[in-house]
């Protein structure tokens, strides 16, 4: 019986790898075909692309990048085709994820060149906006990583961010920016604590608990906002101000990259710091090992003397704090005032970014950047007159998440005990 099972799995695993190799190979070829027949064929001769490499209002000037459209597109399609052929014949093995990223990146670049052919597009500006759009997504995803690595599903990122955005506005207006920031983080932690009490102590379904926080936060912030913040006599409570832009002295002068990465307010730098800090903490320290073991196999962790319940409470508190920090970005880092439902579903995209990034801080930032790029691109394309509706570009993050989740192209793997309440065995 046991042997039969083993042989069966062995037989099943091998063709599955083959299927994946073929699917990915066909995907590469399909990208090449789309570029050739969708983009290049209809293109008139002699068109030229101009990419402006400097974001507007930046003094670090870098020359524009000008190239003829059709040859560039042909080259991109050629590279995709060669990659597809190699993938079908031999397979890239462990590099296939990298190659998928490369091919998709090339394809997006090709699409952009085609969409803007004969015109000018500000690539520097596009990428700069991408970085700012990625901030709440990445920070929100980090909140998810913190919770879910310890086995608590967090779909309440949206609600936590919204509550923190509201609280930070009011406290920021009453005190100063840093007071608002701290109040926002505390509000996020409070929401995280409620999530913890409901799902760890009362063991209610973590998705229901998250839904509760989302509905409650939306209702509460809208209620208080229309009762106070929107009335003229309380306007002074809705003026927290904005964190100033800090240009990093030497790095900002780097051509092209400098203005894109090093000319933002503190949230962008905090994002980079938190991503690397969290990666180090989770994967290189004893604390991280314990944290993850609670998410993977709580019973084993308990046997080794790790306090599962306490670890999970710490996880939701830290996750709440991170979501709170992400929430303050909307008011103190981006808009400078509170509007009803201003997070507009970013918390759910952050959740998608976490899944896309495979429950991993660096992966989450990569996904956040990618989703941020699509966000930035769809706003840009709504201005350019492109035959592809910009709404479809906006759908890309969601479709990509579904594809990754289905495991056809890549596979994301959740912590094993994610979403399972822990109950000590009764003696």
């Amino acid at each position, binding site marked *: 019986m046991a042997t039969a099972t083993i042989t069966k799995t062995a037989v099943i695993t091998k063709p599955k790898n083959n299927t994946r190799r073929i699917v990915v190979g066909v995907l590469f070829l399909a990208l090449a075909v789309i570029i050739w027949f969708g983009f290049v064929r209809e293109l008139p001769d002699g068109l030229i692309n101009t990419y402006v490499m400097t974001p507007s209002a930046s003094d670090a000037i870098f020359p524009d990048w000008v190239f003829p459209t059709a040859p560039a597109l042909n080259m991109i399609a050629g590279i995709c085709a060669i990659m597809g052929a190699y993938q079908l014949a031999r397979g890239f093995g462990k590099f296939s994820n990298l190659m998928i990223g490369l091919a998709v990146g090339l394809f997006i670049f090709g699409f952009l060149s085609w969409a803007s052919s004969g015109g000018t597009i500000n690539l520097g500006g596009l990428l700069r906006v991408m970085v700012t759009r990625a901030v709440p997504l990445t920070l929100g995803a980090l909140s998810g990583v913190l919770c879910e690595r310890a086995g608590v599903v967090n779909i309440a990122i949206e609600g936590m961010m919204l509550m923190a955005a509201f609280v930070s506005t009011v406290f920021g207006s009453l005190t100063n920016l840093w007071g608002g920031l701290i109040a926002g983080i505390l509000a996020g932690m409070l929401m995280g604590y409620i999530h913890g009490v409901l799902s760890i102590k009362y063991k209610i379904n973590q998705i229901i608990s998250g839904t509760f926080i989302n*509905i*409650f936060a939306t209702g509460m912030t809208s209620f208080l906002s*229309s009762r106070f913040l929107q009335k003229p006599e309380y306007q002074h409570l809705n003026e927290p101000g904005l964190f100033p832009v800090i240009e990093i002295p030497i790095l900002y002068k780097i051509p092209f990259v400098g203005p894109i990465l090093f000319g933002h307010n503190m949230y962008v730098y905090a994002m980079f710091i938190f991503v690397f800090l969290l990666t180090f903490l989770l994967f290189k320290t004893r604390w991280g090992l314990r944290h993850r073991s609670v998410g993977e196999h709580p019973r084993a962790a308990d046997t080794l003397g790790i306090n599962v319940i306490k670890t999970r409470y710490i996880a939701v508190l830290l996750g709440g704090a991170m979501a709170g920090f992400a929430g303050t970005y909307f008011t103190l880092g981006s808009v400078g005032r509170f509007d009803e439902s201003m997070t507009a579903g970013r918390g759910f995209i952050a959740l998608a970014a976490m899944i896309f990034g495979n429950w991993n801080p660096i992966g989450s930032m990569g996904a956040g950047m990618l989703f941020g790029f699509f966000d930035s691109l769809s706003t840009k394309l709504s201005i350019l007159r492109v035959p592809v509706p910009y709404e479809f570009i906006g759908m890309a993050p969601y479709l990509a998440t579904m594809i990754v989740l289905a495991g056809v192209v890549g596979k994301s793997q959740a912590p094993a005990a994610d979403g399972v309440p822990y109950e000590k065995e009764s003696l």
Partner: protein
Amino acid sequence: MSQEPKKNAFLIFLDELSRSSFLVTLLAIFTGLLLGGLLVAVTTVDVYTAMKVSIWDGIQVALIAMWNTFYNLFIGAVGNPAEIIAALQGGDALTIRRAIAPFFESFVQTTPYIYAGLAVALGFRVGLFNIGAEGQIFIGAATATWAGYAFKGLPVYIHLPLALFFGALGGGIWGFIPGILKAKTGAHEVINTMMMNYIAFLLSDWLLRAPMQDPNEYTPKSPWILDSAKMIRLFDTPIRFHIGFFIALLMAFLVWWLLFKTTLGFELRTVGLNSNAAKYAGMKVTSAIVIGMSLSGALAGMAGANEVLGVNYRLTPGFSSGYGFDSIALALLGRSHPAGVVLASLLFGFLRNGARMMQVRADVPIDIVSILQALILAFIAAPAIIRTIYRLKEQKVEEAGISTRGWRSE
């Protein structure tokens, strides 16, 4: 044999009542309303001004604020009794209709809740968490609108059911996709339905901007549906009550019949309770998941269709009304039973309708309904909170919760 002291019938009744989940439901609603009232009192500035005079004055003002809120909520939901009596005595038909309009309007608000609540409840029964009712409602509304204006020259008794069917079909497809993904690849339906929500929003944005936009409009709006696709109204204006409410009740009955009286329903519920046991009993778990998600999506789609065919008569971008997330609270409050869902929908429908009057007359933002719904949701999901507050006894049989599962498929 037993050493327990003899109990009289009344004590036994009290004991049973204290353990019943019905009492917990009532107390959950009561506690939610009470906390909502307190929130209104706490956020009323006059209370603090009065507090400066004396604490007693402050409490008085707070109680008046709470009373005003609930009084206007009640009047908004069922109509003003004094006005109704006066109108009936006056005998003018229009005045009577105006007086009783709020009561019927509550049923108009209830109808989409019934569909959406049924959608989530059906999913729960199959062990699926359909968090994407909102997107399915959008798609259902879009397909029903299209059927409402694209088919011309049909009589009402064909066109109306056809448009409703298109709504169910659209929502059903939107539920089918996460269902098949879950059945074939194990991808968790919570994430996929959530992603499908946003795809639905963007898709309907595009539909309204390009293929479905009314050529006579500059803003993104669909054409009006034809008269033959409109839900029949049972009274003259201003009462908007239409036959959709009865269709929703019929659907609730059908869902009950399907789940509890048919073999398919038995299989669906078995898969929901224990998919491994169902597998060993020879049931097709994958097809149960696909059928469950598709039916759930179809019911949500009918909610969208109902709103277009019965109330709005066209599709507009601001169509969303948060039914998707409310429906989770509805399904839990109704304990995933169709009859319970109908009762819960009536409660939410009356609350939502009454809240509009409350917003105008008592200056309390309508968002308080969301807060109430969230609180009731939490108390129902964690009955232990209510049992602790009111010192109720534990239930003998464990309260049926929602089967908790992680992201990872088994």
